[in-house]
C-alpha cells in the first residue's frame, strides 16, 4: 500500500499536535498525515475514570515500556537493554500511543531560563566544573528568539500561572490565573521566607476559567474542576494531545488532515542524500507493510524513538544512519534526562490536618535554578501534594475507625520535598536500537548511561538545602527517600547545533544536509536545564510551523519569522 501526502508527521504527542495545528491554521487545506505506532485511548470516559480512581491504573499503561530484565524479571515481562552505572529506568517515563506522553504528564509548564541557552559559554567563563560540560554546547538560538513562541505555547496548552512572577522574562501574561498555594504549602513557604529562598506558583497546563481572548483557546476544553485525578482527567482540562487531535480530526474542517494508528515506521526513505521521499512502515497488528510518500517528513516520535528511527534509516549516502556524518555521530548520543529526588522527613504533629486535597502541586522554587548554580547543576524544588502518610482511602479500607483516623491525622506526619536536577550531556551516554521488538512491536531500546561524579555529588548539596528548609518547618529525620533515574524528559539525542560538527539539526530543526526532514522532539534540545521540557518543545513546534508557512499574519498575530535569529 502506498499513500502520498505533503507533510508526514511521525508521532502524535504535543509536538505533532501543536505543529499540525499551526500549519492548518495557516492553510486549512494543507495535506498532513500523522502516523502513530499505538492505538487511540478512550478519553474523558467516565467508567475508565472511575476505574482509575479505584485502582490508580491508567488506561494507557499498556503503552509504557516494560521494566528492564533482572535476575527475577525476564522473558515476556521485561524488555530493552541497559548498560552503565546510572540506574536508568524507561518504564513509566513515556507513553507510546496516540497522544504520546501527554497522557501521563503532570502538566508542569516551565519556561527554560535565558542562561540555559548558554550553558557551555557560561560554565567555561567560570572556574567550576568545566570538565563536566566538555561535551555540552550552547543552543544555536537564544531565549529571546523563543520568547514569543513560549507565549503562544502557553496559550495553546492552556497554562495557569502567575504573570507577576518575573523569575523568567515574559512579554505576555499567562492565559489563566495561577492556582493559589494550598494549605499544605504553608509550612514550606514559611520556612523559605525565613531563609530568603524565592518561590512561586507552579505554572501548570490546566485550563482555567478566565481565558477566551485567544484564538488558540479551544472551546471543547472544560475548566479544571480540581478533581486531582490528573493522570486521567475526566474533563480534558489538563492538556492531552489526544483530545486536541480528536477535535482536529472530527470537529474542524481540515479535509486533508488524517491520522493513521498502529503504524510502525521502519525507516525514512531517501531519493538522494539531501532528499527524503517518505517512509516505510508495517502495521502493528498485522502483516501489512507499505510506504508513504511525502514532500516533507517531521520526526516527532519522542526523543528516544526519533533517534532510533534516524539510526535505522541507513542508505548508501547515510551509512551510519540519517543525520550521522560519521560512525558514532551525534544521533543517539548525549542522552540526558532529569534525575528526580524525593526527600522525606517527619513532623511531630499535624494540627492543620494537612492531607492531599489535590494531586498536583501548586508550589515550586526556582531559587537554585540560576546562572550561579549552572556549573554544578541547577535544580528546582517542588512541594508535592499530600504528606505521604495521610491516605484516607487506605485508612478506611484497612478498617480503621473514625476516631483512629482522626488521631492518626493529628499525629506524626511524613512530609516530602521533591525536585529535579540538571544532568549534563556526555557523548558516551546514548540510546540505540536492539534487534528484538518490544511488546508494542517497536525495536527495543538499548541505553548506555554513566552518571558523572558531579551529579552524584550534587545530591549532597541539595540535601543540605532541604535540611535547612526542613529545620525551618520543624521537620526531623531527613532522608533521601528516592533518587529516581527514570528517563523522564529524555533529550539531546539529535541535538540542535550550529553545524554538523556540533549536532544533528540546525536552528530550524532541519537535519544538516537534508532539505526536507525535521526533528521535532526533546531530542533536539542541546541541554534541558532543570525543568520539564514540554512547554519548550511546544514553543519549538509552533515556531517550526511558522517557519514552514508563509511569513506574515496568522490570525492577526505578528511574529516575523526568524526575526531575532
Amino acid at each position, binding site marked *: 500500500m502506498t499513500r502520498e501526502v505533503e507533510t508526514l508527521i511521525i508521532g502524535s504527542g504535543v509536538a505533532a499536535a501543536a505543529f499540525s495545528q499551526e500549519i492548518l491554521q495557516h492553510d486549512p487545506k494543507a495535506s498532513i498525515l500523522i502516523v502513530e505506532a499505538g492505538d487511540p485511548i478512550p478519553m474523558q470516559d467516565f*467508567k475508565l475514570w472511575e476505574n482509575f480512581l479505584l485502582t490508580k491504573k491508567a488506561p494507557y499503561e499498556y503503552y509504557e515500556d516494560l521494566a528492564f530484565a533482572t535476575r527475577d524479571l525476564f522473558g515476556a515481562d521485561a524488555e530493552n537493554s541497559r548498560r552503565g552505572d546510572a540506574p536508568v529506568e524507561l518504564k513509566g517515563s513515556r507513553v507510546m500511543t496516540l497522544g504520546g506522553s501527554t497522557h501521563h504528564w503532570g502538566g508542569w509548564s516551565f519556561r527554560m531560563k535565558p542562561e540555559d541557552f548558554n550553558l557551555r559559554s557560561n560554565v567555561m567563563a567560570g572556574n567550576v566544573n568545566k570538565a563536566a560540560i566538555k561535551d555540552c554546547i550552547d543552543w544555536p538560538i537564544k531565549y529571546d528568539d523563543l520568547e514569543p513562541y513560549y507565549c503562544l505555547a502557553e496559550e495553546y496548552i492552556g497554562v495557569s500561572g502567575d504573570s507577576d512572577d518575573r523569575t523568567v522574562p515574559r512579554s505576555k501574561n499567562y492565559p489563566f490565573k495561577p492556582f493559589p498555594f494550598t494549605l499544605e504549602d504553608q509550612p514550606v513557604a514559611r520556612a523559605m521566607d525565613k531563609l530568603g529562598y524565592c518561590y512561586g506558583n507552579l505554572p501548570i497546563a490546566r485550563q482555567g476559567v478566565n481565558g477566551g481572548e485567544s484564538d488558540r483557546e479551544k472551546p471543547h476544553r472544560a475548566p*479544571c*474542576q480540581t478533581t*486531582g485525578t490528573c493522570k486521567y482527567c475526566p474533563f480534558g482540562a489538563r492538556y492531552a494531545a489526544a483530545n486536541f487531535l480528536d477535535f482536529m480530526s472530527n470537529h474542524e474542517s481540515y479535509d486533508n488532515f488524517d491520522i493513521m494508528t498502529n503504524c510502525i515506521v521502519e525507516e525514512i526513505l531517501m531519493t538522494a542524500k539531501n532528499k527524503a521521499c517518505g517512509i516505510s512502515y508495517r502495521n502493528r497488528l498485522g502483516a501489512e507493510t507499505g510506504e508513504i510518500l511525502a514532500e516533507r517528513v517531521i520526526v516527532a516520535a519522542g526523543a528516544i524513538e526519533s533517534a532510533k528511527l534516524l539510526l535505522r534509516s541507513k542508505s548508501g549516502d547515510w551509512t551510519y544512519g540519517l543525520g550521522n556524518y560519521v560512525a558514532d555521530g551525534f544521533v543517539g548520543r548525549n542522552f540526558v534526562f532529569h534525575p528526580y529526588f524525593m526527600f522525606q522527613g517527619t513532623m511531630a504533629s499535624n494540627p492543620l490536618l494537612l492531607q*492531599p*486535597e*489535590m*494531586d498536583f502541586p501548586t508550589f515550586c522554587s526556582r531559587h537554585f535554578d540560576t546562572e550561579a548554580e549552572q556549573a554544578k547543576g541547577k535544580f528546582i524544588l517542588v512541594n508535592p501534594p499530600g504528606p505521604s502518610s495521610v491516605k484516607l482511602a487506605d485508612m478506611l*479500607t484497612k478498617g480503621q*475507625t473514625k476516631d483512629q483516623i482522626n488521631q492518626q491525622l493529628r499525629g506524626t506526619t511524613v512530609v516530602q520535598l521533591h525536585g529535579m536536577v540538571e544532568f549534563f550531556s556526555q557523548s558516551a551516554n546514548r540510546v540505540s536500537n536492539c534487534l528484538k521488538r518490544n511488546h508494542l512491536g517497536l525495536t527495543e531500546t538499548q541505553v548506555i548511561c554513566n552518571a558523572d561524579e558531579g551529579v552524584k555529588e550534587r545530591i549532597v548539596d541539595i540535601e543540605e538545602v532541604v535540611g535547612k528548609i526542613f529545620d525551618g518547618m520543624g521537620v526531623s529525620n531527613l532522608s533521601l527517600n528516592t533518587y529516581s533515574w527514570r528517563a523522564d524528559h529524555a533529550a539531546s539525542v539529535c541535538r540542535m547545533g550550529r553545524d554538523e560538527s556540533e549536532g544533528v539539526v540546525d536552528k530550524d530543526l532541519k537535519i544538516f544536509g537534508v532539505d526536507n526532514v525535521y526533528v521535532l522532539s526533546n531530542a533536539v534540545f542541546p541541554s534541558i536545564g532543570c525543568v520539564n521540557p514540554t512547554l519548550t518543545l511546544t514553543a519549538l513546534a509552533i515556531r517550526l510551523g511558522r517557519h514552514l508557512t508563509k511569513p506574515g499574519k496568522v490570525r492577526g498575530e505578528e511574529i516575523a519569522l526568524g526575526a531575532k535569529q
Partner: protein
Amino acid sequence: MDALWAIFIQICLFWDNLDNVHQYRSRLESFVINRIANDPTYHDVYTRSVAAIKDLIAQQQLPPSQAEAAAYQFLFTDQNLYSPPPNTDLKLARQKVANELIMLQLALGGFKAFGATNYCGYFGGPNIPGEPPPYRPMEKEAK
C-alpha cells in the same frame, strides 16, 4: 442494586462521614453499571458478595436490630478479610465491593469529615479568580 445501596448506607453509618446520603443513590447506581461495563465479571462479584453478606448477617447471634450493624462492622474491619487474595466470597465482598464503595464514598464527600475541603476524585469545582479556591489555601500572612 438495593443490596449494594444497603452496603453504601452502612459505610456512611459506620464512619459517620456523609450527610444526606440519599442524594448519592443515582451516583452509586451509575457506578455499579460502569463497573460491570468495564469488567463484566463484576456482575458475578456483586451477586456472590451480596449473598455472602446476607449469610454473615444471618450468622450473627444477636437480635435482628443489632445483627446487621455487627455484621457490617466485621465486614469493614476484620483484618483477615482485608488480606488478599479474595479467595472466599466474604473476602471478595470486602475487597472488591465494600472497599471500592468506601473509596467512592470518600470521593463523593466522605473525606470532609476528616478536615479537608477537597480530595482526589472529588469534583471540587473550578479555580475562579476573586473567589476562594476549591481547596484549603495557604493563609495570607505567609508571604
